[in-house]
């Protein structure tokens, strides 16, 4: 079966800053693939590359970038516009950047459906109200008439989610879709998404910092660090047997309620990500890594401890 989304050797740079450096990953129909990693490691940029929504100063290249087998690199702007918000939709990390403050929630939601599916205003409004209700918004009629700034952070986030689902996408890229929500609503949205996944075979690329969500909903997890995918494995395998030192460090930092020591500092990975200048070689984690030696400054092998598990490190498989 061909994957729904294939990303191979993606490179994105802004001037002399390399934001994504050869990242590869794929999403199958009905699969939830979670992307985690340090703030600034290139998760959102990877997602925006797929949607072709990068800032104008970005340079994107890849060995392959395909949706349902169709090449996205060579696709025309109008071809891309037909897919976006339609067969593939995205929930953005910051809802205020993608909701237009000048239009009501209702007009923004119905516009997508009218544009892509030529639905009538009436049908579009019905669907919008239905989806708002499904993401747990009561009085959808009231909310449809409101402007984005009149909504709480969590309401805006749910409007974004409902809007992304308007055209029944086959691929959903969700960038931190539930961080603005309380945990009970978060659980509700995650259950809704997995129901859609079952019913429609929706494939999901889910970007999140919440390793609790990852553990509970992901089929597969990829860990990014400084623009590279440093480890990728099925979820249970990654949590039970993390191999890359960054993944190990990350998992150790997760605060778990009930196991908190109030007077001690929270565990963190000391240091910061280095600046990746052109010509950078070796492992980008080496300055923070307890296992680093001189070989970490040259080419790093990708090991495969099992068919579905790979990691990028000098340490043996």
């Amino acid at each position, binding site marked *: 079966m061909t994957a729904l989304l294939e990303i191979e050797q993606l490179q994105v740079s802004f001037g002399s800053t390399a934001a994504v450096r050869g990242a590869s990953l794929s999403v199958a129909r009905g699969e939830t693939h979670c992307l985690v990693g340090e703030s600034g490691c290139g998760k959102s940029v990877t997602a925006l590359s797929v949607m072709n929504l990068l800032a104008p100063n970005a340079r994107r290249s890849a060995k392959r970038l395909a949706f349902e087998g169709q090449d996205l690199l060579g696709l025309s702007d109008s071809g891309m516009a037909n897919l976006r918000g339609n067969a593939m939709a995205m929930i953005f990390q910051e809802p205020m950047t993608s909701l237009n403050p000048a239009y009501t929630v209702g007009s923004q939601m119905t516009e997508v459906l009218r544009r892509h599916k030529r639905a009538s205003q009436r049908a579009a409004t019905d669907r919008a109200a239905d989806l708002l209700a499904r993401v747990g918004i009561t009085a959808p009629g009231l909310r449809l008439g409101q402007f984005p700034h009149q909504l709480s952070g969590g309401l805006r986030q749910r409007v974004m989610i409902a809007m992304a689902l308007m055209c029944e996408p086959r691929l959903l890229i969700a960038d931190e879709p539930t961080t603005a929500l309380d945990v009970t609503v978060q659980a509700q949205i995650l259950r809704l998404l997995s129901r859609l996944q079952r019913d429609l075979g929706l494939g999901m690329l889910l970007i999140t910092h919440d390793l609790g969500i990852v553990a*509970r909903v992901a089929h597969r997890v990829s860990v990014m660090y400084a623009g590279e995918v440093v480890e990728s494995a099925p979820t249970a395998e990654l949590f039970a047997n993390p191999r890359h030192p960054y993944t190990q460090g990350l998992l150790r930092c997760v605060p778990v309620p009930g196991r908190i020591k109030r007077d001690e500092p929270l565990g963190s990975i000391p240091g910061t990500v280095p600046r990746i200048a052109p010509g950078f070689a070796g492992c980008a984690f080496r300055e923070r890594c307890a296992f680093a030696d001189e070989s970490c400054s040259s080419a790093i092998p990708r090991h495969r401890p099992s068919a579905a598990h790979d990691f990028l490190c000098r340490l043996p498989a």
Partner: protein
Amino acid sequence: MTAIELGNVRKTFRVKGGLLGADRHVVAVDDVSFAVPTGGVLGIVGESGCGKSTLARLILGLLQPDRGSIAVEGQRVAAMDRRARARLIQPVFQDPFASLNPMTRVRDIVAMPLKAQGNFGAADVRRRVDEMLARVGLSAEMGRRLPAELSGGQRQRVAIARALVLRPRIVVCDEPTSALDVSVQAQILNLLAELRRELGLTYLFISHNLAVVEHVASEVAVMYLGRFVERAPTERLFGEPEHPYTRALLASVLTPEPGLGVPDVGLGDTLPDPANIPAGCRFHPRCPIAEPRCAVESPPLKARPGGGVECLLV
């Protein structure tokens, strides 16, 4: 000494009813009273849309209450001038992108509160900004960027640097670390804790991340539809939660254990309508243990050690 004190604060918003409907009133904060001692950290958790950010904006003086009193460090917020208020209390907001001017470089964003005071020399401003950027883990090179050239987490550090650069007495944090990975989150929270100890700061700390709240807060308030339905010292709230909504919240936390799936804690899928607050106990339509009288009787505040709970059945 009391750092923050609220007495019977209420705030409603009028929402246009559209073509047919009449205007409606959303009750965002409904008769809330509390005090936070100097050096304390009050964690606030609760439903999305229950009024947490509204409460934060009221305390910051960015919104006026319909009624009730709000004082910080013994002074009425409404009576303070903006500059004095800025030296005393600073926000770190939820959505770093919306709260940072996109056309202003990071350094200048962080310098803004100092410049607005009007009495810091240029060299002093530069020194304080450098120090603050380093403190939150942003390089000098990043200081020269625009907000759009930063990742979400990097932007959140800018917002924190801007809030702390004036060394305020009180910091109102509204989801300050929700955009950060767990390691950077830990660094920021450790930084906030360190500054609190060093400078005797008081925090109001709003977050959906219960583990984070458990770590930073000295006491926790649980908010539901505009009211504090439970309030307790942190250990008690996490150890012996009483209100059914508090229990549901704690049961919804996703621990990093693969294979357990996403729990359904039985609150139903319809959320409350803040323009139409249920009679009796406002939680009763969703409460898993509700009895008929919960739909009629308003639960009184029952006192508990260091706090209280509003439920008829506990």
